[in-house]
């Protein structure tokens, strides 16, 4: 029984095309089942890692070093005075700081993102907030934390490990709830 030549050609063509088709199908499957890359870039890959070092001069002439705050929660808040959600969340940060200042268990540090130090000084004079604010050469901190847009806040645990990333404006209640949830997850 001999196969016709045309049939053999078709068979060979199938052999040649099949691997390419399989490869393409696998690639499509791989790409289709993943979330968009722009979304994935928003996830912090630093959660559970040592929080990047933040140190530098503050707008009140002091010096901030995040390691000096080991033993308490630190809310690293990246903000800009020209960002509306940042302006809206500011009173909530003030409330959070005031509530925890007595307890000494948590503090806020603000790091500017794409803003002028003079604007920041004026903003805090008008809106209050007596926590450390870093406003000079802060681009490096933003890169090390993976900040894509403001406002973004990072919860640094008392151990110095980055515990959470909060995208968008926060409230004092949000922060308290998040800290409590993290503490519960650690305890359980």
């Amino acid at each position, binding site marked *: 029984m001999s196969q016709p030549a045309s049939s053999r050609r078709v068979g060979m063509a199938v052999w040649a*095309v099949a691997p390419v088709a399989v490869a393409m199908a696998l690639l499509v499957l791989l790409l289709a089942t993943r979330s968009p890359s722009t979304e994935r870039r928003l996830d912090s890959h630093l959660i559970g890692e040592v929080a990047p070092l933040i140190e530098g001069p503050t707008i009140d002439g002091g010096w901030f070093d995040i390691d000096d705050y080991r033993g308490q929660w630190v809310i690293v808040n990246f903000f800009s005075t020209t960002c509306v959600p940042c302006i809206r969340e500011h009173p909530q940060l003030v409330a959070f700081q005031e509530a925890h200042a007595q307890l000494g268990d948590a503090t806020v540090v603000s790091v500017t993102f794409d803003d002028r130090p003079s604007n920041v000084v004026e903003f805090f004079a008008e809106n209050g907030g007596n926590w450390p604010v870093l406003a000079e050469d802060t681009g490096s901190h*933003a*890169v090390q934390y993976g900040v894509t847009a403001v406002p973004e806040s990072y919860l640094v645990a008392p151990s110095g490990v980055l515990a959470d990333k909060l995208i968008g404006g926060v409230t004092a209640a949000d922060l308290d709830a998040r800290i409590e949830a993290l503490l519960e997850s650690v305890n359980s």
Partner: protein
Amino acid sequence: MTAEVQGRPRTGLRAVAWVAAFVVGTSALLFAAVDEGGPETNADRAYQLANDFACPTCQGQSVAESDAPAARNIRREIGVWVDEGRADEYIRDQLVSVWGEDIDYTPSGTGVTSLVWILPVVGIATAGAGLGLAFRRWQITPEIGSVDRSHPVGERGEGDKQQAVVWMVGIVVVATIAGVLVAQFSGNRSSGESVSGDIRTTSRELLVEAQQALGSGDLEGAIDIYDDVLEIQPSNTEALTYKAWSLRLAGDTEAGVLLIEDAVAIDPEYPEARVFGAVIALDLGDIATAAVHLDAFDALDASPFMEQLVEQQGLRSRIELLLDDEVLERVESILMVDAPPRFPDTGLTVDEVLLAAETLAAGGRVVDALELVQQVVGQIHDDPDLLAGYGWLLARSASPDSPEPAEVALPRLDAALAIDPVHPDALVYRAFTHAFLEQFELAAADLAVFDSLDEQPAELIDLIAAFDLRGQLD
């Protein structure tokens, strides 16, 4: 025969020509892809690197192309790293560790993303091989009759098919291996595995790592990491202190003593060293050292976390209790015997006697406490502390049904104040005793003198408040 002789050189030459064309073409493509010429300046290199990363906030733009603030920050940071002389691998590791593999336009050669490298190689190689085989068969088919007439056409077809399958499987295997190799040599970077080596080399990061190991109960791991820190920085008080603590948790308490001593010598104001030092000293029964550490800790402006730890460990009450017990044991063995030595020969102090008496009284042995103090008062008549303490013990043993001890206490308190008219303890104790005996004016007078003192001991203020002495006098 003539046709075969004439045909072989032509076929051989054609094959060589094809191979040569393939080699030259592939080499040229590879060379063009791999060697684009090295950057001439740091700025060139920074720009090339910026082109290798995706802007984190934009679609389809590289860091070099985008004007988004995040991209500008990354460009600036790449420039700084390049100026610092950092390797490309270091810069890639830094950015990938923060934003993940997606930011890297040259994907990793490990994990699922390695398929990006492997599949095209497999696909192209297999397809090329398939086409090659197809062309070969098309060339052979017209000559079937002249090549081999000894086998039926059907058998030759089956043999060719089997040969094709073997070739195809072989090519797929080789192509897969080639794809894996390409993937390995193209990337092999991830946030956890860096080509340039482990970047977590600073003592600060090691300390946090050690804390995590300690927190998860990996004591050996924590001790090893603290050793690494001490190798880098032998005077690191945190590493010394926490290594001592880890050793204590691992059961080797004595090994921690020297480390705590080192830590305290380097930084006497490091709160953790004081607290852990107190706990370790207590474990070893060295109550005096524990008390010294705790006193030093109380003088520091420690974090609330450490204060909580002291409370949780019950350090203050434990040390106080043990100190009391220790003193009582010493005093009882010397003074509460049939023929006690003269007090000056005992080596005891009045404070120790009073502390032992308080411990006895707190344990319900009030009569023993009074006898102990009375024995010393019989030998020392002019110590206001002793007289005040004795009077207070007597006054506290009085009750509304039996007020006599309070009446006996008054002359002792008077004697103390005769020696030292502003003795704070004697003033407060006598105020309480007068109030108990309903001599309120005298009590108020003693309290007024106490209030006029420049320094009023906190424990006496607490005592007045606890029993509402002022309220009784109003």
